[in-house]
């Protein structure tokens, strides 16, 4: 097989209607929006909740922690669009600030876990041999812990609170990313240009950073997008169990704890809205991730 026939396993194939590859972030985003309408819906959902989190201080009508005992368990009204909870706090404001918590935990865990996994995965594939063998066994062991169980174990040791929750969710994500990155990196290692770079006497770090990492970016981006959603769900579950983010920090999982079940019949809005926020956010992330995969991985098209 000649060098010309070799193609990287995943290449960005985002092309517009003229078959041209867009240059620059705005052009890429615009082409993505037109070619992947479903992904665009996802992106819009993510943007709505993301912007809500960033600008919560300015757009929230009330403080997320302010109690107004005159309006406890009020149904949605003009003053309180989504109603109030059993402590007289405005649900809309809490959901807006909760978006911040969700995205901080989701993005930090996904990025840190993803980057650690990227380093381990590429190094494991590039160096191979004994290092690869032992790293893979170690990853097997860590992967045997279901995500939420691992997170619970970490929380039981370090305690609750937002930083510990991020640590607890990041750790189980690392091997899952390393696994995916390694399998794409293994294919890249066999491509002749890596041999060529080695023959030219380039350092390991240069080969890894300049030749291997850019070529595993496709699957890497797809998996960390999925991680953001998983991390948001895991954070909500931990907070719901009382083992995650703690009061008074507003978090969607926390809003469903206690009051939501107790007041289920008399004040269903307490239970319904925070859950809808979680669902729509993760739904948006998943839609976006699916379209991203379609764009970055031509083999997965039309599925």
């Amino acid at each position: 097989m000649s060098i010309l026939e070799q193609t990287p396993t995943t290449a960005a194939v985002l092309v517009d209607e003229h078959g041209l590859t867009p240059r620059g972030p705005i052009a890429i985003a615009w082409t993505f929006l037109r070619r992947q309408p479903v992904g665009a819906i996802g992106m819009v959902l993510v943007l709505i909740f993301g912007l809500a989190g960033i600008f919560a201080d300015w757009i929230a009508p009330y403080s997320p922690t302010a109690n107004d005992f005159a309006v406890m368990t009020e149904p949605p009204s003009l003053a309180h669009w989504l109603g109030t909870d059993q402590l007289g706090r405005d649900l809309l404001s809490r959901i807006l600030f909760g978006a911040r918590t969700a995205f901080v935990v989701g993005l930090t865990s996904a990025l840190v876990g993803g980057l650690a996994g990227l380093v381990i995965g590429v190094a494991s594939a590039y160096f191979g041999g004994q290092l690869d063998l032992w790293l893979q066994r170690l990853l097997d062991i860590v992967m045997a812990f279901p995500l939420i169980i691992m997170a619970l174990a970490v929380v039981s040791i370090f305690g609750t609170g937002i930083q510990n929750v991020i640590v607890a969710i990041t750790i189980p994500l690392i091997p899952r990313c390393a696994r995916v990155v390694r399998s794409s990196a293994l294919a890249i290692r066999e491509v002749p240009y890596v041999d060529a770079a080695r023959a030219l006497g380039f350092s390991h770090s240069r080969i890894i950073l300049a030749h291997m990492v850019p070529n595993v970016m496709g699957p890497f981006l797809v998996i960390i997008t999925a991680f953001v959603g998983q991390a948001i769900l895991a954070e909500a579950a931990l907070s719901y169990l009382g083992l995650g983010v703690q009061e008074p920090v507003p978090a969607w999982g926390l809003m469903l704890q206690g009051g939501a079940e107790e007041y289920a019949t008399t004040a269903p809005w307490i239970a319904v809205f925070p859950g809808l926020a979680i669902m729509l956010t993760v739904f948006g992330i998943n839609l976006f991730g699916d379209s991203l995969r379609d764009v970055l991985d031509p083999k997965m098209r039309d599925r």
Partner: protein
Amino acid sequence: MYRYIISRVLLVFPTLAGAATLVFVLMRLVPGDICLVRLGSGGGNFTTQALEACHAEIGIDRSWIVQYLEFMWGMARFDFGISMWSGKPVIVEIATRFPISLEVAVMATIIAVTLAIPLGTISALKQNSWIDLVVRTFSIAGLATPAFWLGIVSILVVLDLTQAISGHPWMPPIDYVPLWQDPIRNLSIVMLPALTIGYRYAAVSMRMTRSAMLEVLREDYIRTARAKGLINRIIINRHALKNALLPVVTVIGIEFAFLIGGLVVTEQVFNLNGIGRYMVQCVQNQDYTATQALVMLTVTIAVLSNLVVDLLYAWLDPRIRLA
């Protein structure tokens, strides 16, 4: 074939031993002295003797190596020690809670499989039709819905529905009775939790069935079968579905381990006294002996379900063994 089975089965032991080691190390990372936490939790003062007695009782006055070997030997004999909270053997605490969790898990699996395979197949056969769109939306939403929220909402719906129909709200009973004693009561306890966990499970398996089916339908042998003039039903059932189910089996196996994670939150919502809820209590009570036993139990279930998947896979697809 036998070589593959034996080597695959043998691989389970180092993985489990490694996991046990990891659990041992993790539990020793607890900042501070467990005994200080335990004695201090009462709020009162305590003597140095009491602290030393506590150290001796848990055995943390001995060297790490001795503790480690003892821990591993205990795990190998299913001796998980005494619960630091209740004072009863951990294995007894787990045994009383295990049946209900297992029943919910099995029920959820049945629900998932009976939903996923037919719907995933139809979705693939009628690609891009309205039914495909509905199935895909249903399954992608399943991946985004937190199981505990679905649980809360389903309780809400049941309460409102029974209120509307019979005039007084009905809640599923929470005290567990085995299936063979009172099937109706048993099912009324287990059904809602199984449905809420099963939804996610069904969603994942449905996506897999659909994409595997789409891939198989493009294979040459399907075209050959069509060209031979075989009727569609035989092509689908005998040629396509049979081959498409391979990756579905994998996903069902992998997701079974996920299910245990789902139990942790769902049991809390429905107030079921299963191992998931017990684990949350153990973490809250800082009961490290019980926590490490429960973590090991879930890891063992995950490792064994992976083993079953790999063996099934090898049995279903002869090409795997060559790899």
